[in-house]
């Protein structure tokens, strides 16, 4: 069933709030494949370990 009802500001607020919650909670789904998925995990040194607090990135 389709609806011709115009979207109003409340609709935009509710859908925006929903997307905002998904952003914070990390529950979005990607629409494209992850570019990293076909690459092997490289061996990272202590400098590159995120838990070391000195990660270059």
């Amino acid at each position, binding site marked *: 069933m389709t609806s011709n009802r115009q979207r109003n500001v409340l609709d935009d*607020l509710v859908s925006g709030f929903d997307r905002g919650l998904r952003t*914070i909670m990390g529950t*979005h789904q*990607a*629409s494209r494949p992850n570019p990293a998925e076909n*690459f092997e995990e*490289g061996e990272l040194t202590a400098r590159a370990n995120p838990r070391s607090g000195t990660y*270059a990135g």
Partner: protein
Amino acid sequence: MRVNHTGEVCAQALYEGQALTARDPKAKAALLDAAAEEQDHLVWCRQRLKDLDARPSVMDPAFFGLSFAMGAAAGMLGDRISLGFVEATEDQVVQHLDEHLQNLPERDQKTREVLEAMRADESRHGAQALANGGTEFSAPVKRGMRVLSKVMTATTYRI
């Protein structure tokens, strides 16, 4: 990668805020389309953080709220300014990604692939914003935005 993830949280919030107050339906649709692509970046960054046994920043909700308010305010200033804000923001993001790519360990190919795909999208979003009628911001305004982005990156680097 935590900084990149927070940047994508901010991007989502900015686009949502701008779309909420955009006047032209075409500008609103363009903003929401860009936000949908930014969702991919968000998912990819989160996955990479998980791979690296790291967590997102605890500051993400605060930056989301702040960015949403900034986006909504930019949208209220009119679509030309709002789209110009998109271009200026994406310009900052591209500069940040370039710096990150330069500092990335050579063996971290997975992160490199993610960052390069993000960079291509961000660069295109900026160009599209100008093509859709955005006003390019002056260099001093962009420098001011650069200072703000440094606050975000310095904060989320560790927490």
